[in-house]
């Protein structure tokens, strides 16, 4: 068991590969509809974003008692939250998202997360990406498995992960292309030797192997030409910061119709234990500012194409309801998720938020989890990515479609 535990990140070895094969057979295949595919964009805020700052429960007096130093003021006060429904409000630096909410293209899900009690970043991130909550040996991710079930041709850019490390959610998916920055996806060979080195590396990496590095190398060489063509010359698009350039690049890939079905964007730096700030100074307001602007720019960029895109903003767990002794927050439990998209049934705050009174808190300190994240992912996979039955994505989880939150329209 102990050896297995560490191998949680192991590649799909014997047993896992076998399981994957069986899974593929059980999943059944949805036919690829005519026309461009639906796209899911997962934005993972690594380090556990403080959801109580993102979407503020401004009607809860307890919120202001627990967070004397870092609370976001009530709507109407200076730097106050931007009211959504009389109960919750957006952090003022997320103001660019208000238009999407008003256009009913943004849904907020409150008190969502994993039922597992862990407050370990890496453990919680793994569970949220494998969907196998409590099973540290699971090696493959829900998104990759969901995509595998779509019977479509392999494509160099079917799924991209903009991340320095390979996200577990897409691990094991043959078409996943992982790169921290799409712009880096070019061989720096020098002018004279470029033809020889390019063809040389292509041949060297054209080995038939289960080894991931070789596969990744081959995929990189295959995709780099296409990526360069699609992205064109480097130009900072308005609305995007240096740390959110990934959104601009993904928008270009979607518009270029190269078959992109899933994009995973990792954004780090949300682990705000100290001086996280309220609305003005501090790391959190700055990061929320970049996130809000990037999401709004992304939506504007895509225009009518946004109709076939769903963006899911998530994080491994929430943070303590009470601010800690150093003007920050520690690891908590339930959190908030955002769902954006042209066909999203938004303009609503979904999920059951019980409140922040001591008896309502998980273990007396955190927002509880009243919506299992797997219910959200199942709705996304079934209603957007047309997976016939998402229950196979989540071992030991009783999927009940009556629990659907309804952020996506039901098929007629």
């Amino acid at each position, binding site marked *: 068991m102990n050896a297995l535990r560490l*191998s949680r990140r192991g590649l799909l070895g014997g047993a896992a590969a076998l399981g994957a094969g069986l899974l593929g057979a059980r999943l059944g295949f949805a036919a690829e509809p005519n026309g461009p595919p639906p796209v899911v964009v997962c934005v993972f805020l690594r380090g556990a974003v403080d959801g109580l700052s993102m979407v503020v429960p401004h009607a809860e007096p307890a919120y202001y008692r627990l967070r004397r130093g870092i609370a976001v003021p009530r709507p109407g006060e200076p730097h106050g939250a931007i009211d959504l429904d009389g109960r919750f409000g957006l952090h003022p630096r997320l103001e660019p998202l208000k238009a999407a909410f008003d256009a009913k293209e943004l849904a907020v899900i409150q008190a969502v997360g994993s039922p597992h009690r862990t407050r370990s970043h890496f*453990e919680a991130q793994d569970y949220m990406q494998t969907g196998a909550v409590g099973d540290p040996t699971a*090696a493959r991710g829900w998104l990759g498995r969901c995509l595998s079930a779509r019977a479509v041709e392999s494509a160099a850019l079917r799924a991209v992960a903009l991340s320095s490390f390979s996200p577990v959610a897409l691990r094991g998916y043959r078409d996943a292309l992982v790169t921290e920055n799409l712009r880096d996806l070019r061989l720096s060979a020098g002018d004279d030797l470029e033809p*020889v*080195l390019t063809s040389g590396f292509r041949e060297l990496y054209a080995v038939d192997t289960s080894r991931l590095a070789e596969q990744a*190398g081959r995929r990189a060489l295959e995709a780099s030409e296409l990526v360069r063509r699609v992205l064109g010359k480097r130009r900072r698009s308005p609305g995007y910061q240096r740390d959110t350039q990934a959104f601009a690049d993904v928008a270009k890939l979607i518009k270029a119709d190269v078959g992109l079905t899933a994009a995973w964007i990792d954004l780090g730096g949300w682990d705000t234990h100290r001086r996280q700030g309220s609305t003005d100074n501090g790391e959190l307001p700055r990061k929320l500012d970049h996130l809000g602007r990037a999401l709004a720019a992304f939506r504007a960029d895509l225009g009518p194409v946004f109709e076939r895109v769903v963006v899911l903003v998530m994080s491994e767990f929430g943070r303590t309801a009470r601010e*800690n*002794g*150093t003007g920050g927050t520690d*690891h908590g439990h339930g959190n908030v998720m955002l769902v954006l998209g042209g066909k999203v049934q938004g303009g609503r705050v979904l999920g059951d938020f019980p409140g922040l009174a001591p008896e309502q808190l998980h273990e007396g300190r955190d927002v509880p989890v009243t919506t299992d994240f797997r219910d959200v992912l199942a709705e996304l996979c079934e209603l957007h990515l047309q997976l016939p039955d998402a229950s196979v994505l989540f071992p030991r989880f009783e999927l009940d479609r009556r629990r659907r939150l309804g952020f996506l329209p039901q098929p007629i």
Partner: protein
Amino acid sequence: MWWPRLFATTGLIALGACSSSHVAMHAPTPARPPSVIEPAARPKTVVDPPPTIAAIGEARHVLNRLAFGPRPGEVERVARMGPQRWIDEQLAGPAESPLLEATLQPHRSAFAPPVQLIDEWLGDGWEEATRTSRALRRETRPYFDEHLARLATAELTRDILSRRQLEAVMTDFWANHFNVFAVKGFVRLFEGDYLERAIRPHALGKFSDLLLATARHPAMLLYLDNAESRKQVRRGRRRGGLNENYARELLELHTLGVDAGYTQADVTNVARIFTGWSVARVNEGGLDFVFRRDTHDRRGKTVLGESFPAGEDEAEGVRLLELLARKPATARHLARRLCLRFVADEPPPSCVAAASDAYLGSDGDIAQVMRAITGDPSFWADSARAAKLKTPLELLASAARALGAQPDGSLALATTMERLGEPLLQEQVPTGYPDSEPEWASAGGMLARMSFASELGTGRLQGLTVPWEEALPLGADLDARVTRFGCELLGVSADSRTLKLVREQVRRLDAEEQRRAAAVALLIGSPEFQRQ
């Protein structure tokens, strides 16, 4: 160093490696501890018989895993002395090379304690001029980037040139295990001191010493916010209280491991124990560890069933660290991490058991643990050889070593690590950089490796001076020399697929220099060289 010269003249070794490694690579050899070859009396005038195939394979393996790769001729040297003797020498800590000392000289300031560092930047009297943290930050900020680049360059220089290779490898391992993010706040002022005085001296010593050194070091106290954590205050307007960041990572990452069964109450109580472990401010005559009695929570606590009575002050933190270091869960956790690093991405149970037993039997002596790991058959197994993906750092250092390259004194190597995706000392999260292939085998990362190899081969890589005429001399029989160079570099046979492909590509070029450049680029960027 008479071996390489001797064999350069006889040509024996190069041929030997080429033909014999074919067998070593493909014929399965039973897993067993290394063959011990009695070192011959030297110097001598007769040529020894070439080392056995098995000994060459073993030597290559230890140099890939326990060092940052072989330098020219080193595989043969270690094969002759016997890998076990090399391991013994490394555990004992050989004298450092004068070349390293000389090359490090311009970067010495990188390891200076913060006060000395600031003295150097701002001149005497800065304590008066910069009494607040804000002022200090403003004044020192212009020096930050260069300082970090210098520190990274110094570490890389050590990894490339040091004779104490195992110590360098272990320093990298522990710096990653006890990761701090150098770019956070003032951490960068302390990072060099952290490596030089908290990590390196204990890299092969007692784990409990290492643990205590990191726990008390300002780099860690600032990175995981413990410096500001204080007992909960309920009265009056004075705010302040616990920050459990360090406490949680201490249990989860540094010692017990995530699955060891501790509770949230344990985390909270550990945080209470470490209240008061802080960093002295400038106007306290400081920038060093300080125990603040007034912010320490003096009430009694219980952690993992062990009681810590009221009023033990600083001593209770030290006692807790000793307790944690002795826990079997800690032994298992560290054993797994070490076997993952040194043996395989899926740590073999026999290795974990051997390492864990050695840890518990030696009161956490890291050298004994390394002996146990290298004494376990799984370390030498065929399946373990040339199997693990090199990290970007291992790639850069091993490429430089293979070519006999010398850091050129510039700070360009630091930038190279950034382009390879793992800038030294700059991983933001406390878990450190990942250590298994599924986590970092990314398309972007692999292309970055090929680009690095191309730049190195074509002479566009800054930061290293390569003695090309020694590494791979030009001349009429370049093809044959490329083959020999490739055999030695990759441990493959002359007729391997890779060497055939490289020869074919190289033949498309006319100029000798270009052919050499392309050959080196393709070989260093080849799938085989990404493995260790």
